């Protein structure tokens, strides 16, 4: 599965490379568009489904994991881009994996030190960022063949795209499941944030399906469907380019 995803990402990178020549500005715009919408790691590449589905039960958890992933993604892209010229092609994957693992460990230690509650509630999914296909995918497909600045920007945009999807899914599930938003925000931001919790409505019983993994799958399905609908609307609005080719005769019967 990984292989094919990376291949798909490869093609998009080649597209960027082709588009990028005219000006630097449009290249960055294209990277942003790819990360946030067209090639969104959550909705289109479907990378990192495991954390996406497992920790989005509340908005706080979703934001926490999204930020951690984004941080790792930016720095792994920068580091990979820095070392790309010195790493022999044959052993590049192990090197990338070690860079990513080191970064994830640092982020994990940071969260353990400064947001212990969040550390407990994210559990195993924090160290599991190391296996998130978005990160190795971007390292291999983008950072290992582009400049440092572009790689950092790509990491930021891909991370942001992932974070947005996580946040929307987390918010939706939290509202449906327990009728709140930012429940447990103090875990992420410190004690002052406990007042951020918004109670939208009170349930007699919580809607368990939204909080269980099946709810995440269903919500994810709806998000992807929504994106496809929007894409289709946009495509329909574009003026139709009609290609008028020459009419060729398939067979000509000579009379004479």
């Amino acid at each position, binding site marked *: 599965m990984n292989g094919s995803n990376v291949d798909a990402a490869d093609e998009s990178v080649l597209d960027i490379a082709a588009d990028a020549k005219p000006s630097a500005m449009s290249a960055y715009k294209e990277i942003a568009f790819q990360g946030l919408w067209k090639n969104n790691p959550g909705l289109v590449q479907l990378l990192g489904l495991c954390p996406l589905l497992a920790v989005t039960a509340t908005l706080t958890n979703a934001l926490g994991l999204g930020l951690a992933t984004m941080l790792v993604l930016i720095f792994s892209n920068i580091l990979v881009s820095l070392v790309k010229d010195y790493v022999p092609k044959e052993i590049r994957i192990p090197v990338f994996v070690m860079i990513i693992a080191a970064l994830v460990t640092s982020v994990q230690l940071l969260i353990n030190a400064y947001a212990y509650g969040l550390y407990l509630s994210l559990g195993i999914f924090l160290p599991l960022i190391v296996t998130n296909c978005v990160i190795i995918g971007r390292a291999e497909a983008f950072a290992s063949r582009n400049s440092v600045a572009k790689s950092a920007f790509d990491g930021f945009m891909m991370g942001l795209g992932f974070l947005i999807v996580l946040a929307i899914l987390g918010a939706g599930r939290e509202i449906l499941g327990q009728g709140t938003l930012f429940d447990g925000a103090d875990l992420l931001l410190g004690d002052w944030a406990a007042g951020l919790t918004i109670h939208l409505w009170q349930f007699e*019983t919580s*809607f*368990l*399906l*939204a909080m*269980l993994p*099946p709810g995440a799958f*269903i919500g994810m399905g709806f998000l992807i469907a929504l994106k496809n609908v929007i894409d289709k609307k946009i495509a329909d609005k574009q003026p139709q380019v009609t290609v008028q080719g020459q009419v060729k005769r398939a067979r000509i019967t000579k009379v004479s």
Partner: protein
Amino acid sequence: MAFKIASSPHLSRRFQTSTLMQRVLLCALPGVAVQCYFFGWGTIIQLLLAICVALFCEASVLTLRKRPVLATLKDNSALLTALFIGIAVPPLAPWWLTFLGAIFAIIIVKHLYGGLGHNIFNPAMAAYVMLLISFPVQMTSWVAPSVIAGQPLDIFASLQMIFIGGSQLEISAYKMGFDGIAMATPLDTLKTDLAMGLTSTESLTKSIFSDGYGVGWFWVNMAYLAGGLAMIKMKLIRWHISTGLLGALYICASIGFILNPDTHAGPLFHLFSGATMLAAFFIATDPVTAATSVRGRLLFGALIGVLVYIIRTYGGYPDAYAFAILLANLCAPFIDHYMKPRTYGHRSRS
């Protein structure tokens, strides 16, 4: 004069979908009636609520999908789905359970997969599972049969209970002297008792059982059995799935009972408890989501029977038809693939 040439089979009586569904509905009515007799007005109210919501959802989705609304509504399939939801939820459950269930069944399970004929899962059962895992407390507190509870709730009390909430009413019910209106189903009671270390014979002497069956449930199952046999007689369904299901359940339950009669209920108890007959004849035989070949149907039914026995005996939920049917729905294409009947004039593959 033109001769009409039709392809074989030449002797066939074709049902329209609507006629078929209508007759299935009619065959289910005796069971519904018996259920109302034992468990009060709640069943009818839930049924009507489910039907209204389901038809409304069906109509709105059809409008959105730009499909013919009236013609499709007339095929009665939404009505049938609503019927199964209405009789599967506990009679005095709060209204939003049925409401959510009907919406989920019609919009998500049926129409998002492409409408009637394209749904992978049985809509009613998928909705039931959704409700069961989301609201386990509300979904497992069934009404005590009127025979035990003394006087049944009248229609207004039932309406109040469903639409406003039961806490106030339950207190007054206690004051009036009868022992609560909500209680576990016989299967649930047996399961809890066995977990607490009672033997099945001891458990079966409780007031919710009579003659070794759950009070009321025996007759409910008998009525659905009668309806099911009528359906086979009218050729609305084939006999294979029901036979496979009941046979497998009977065999599994017999083995369990022979090996350890103290901790297992007898085979007949399994056959006439919970939703056995309803599921065997009305739900598992759904033509869209079941297997289609003869051997495939037998296997499909048997798979459900075995799964039900395993989940009832070792699982966390007292009754298991919804889970078993959904799992078997998943296997149906696979079963069909390996159970292709031999084409006439060809040798069988093996």
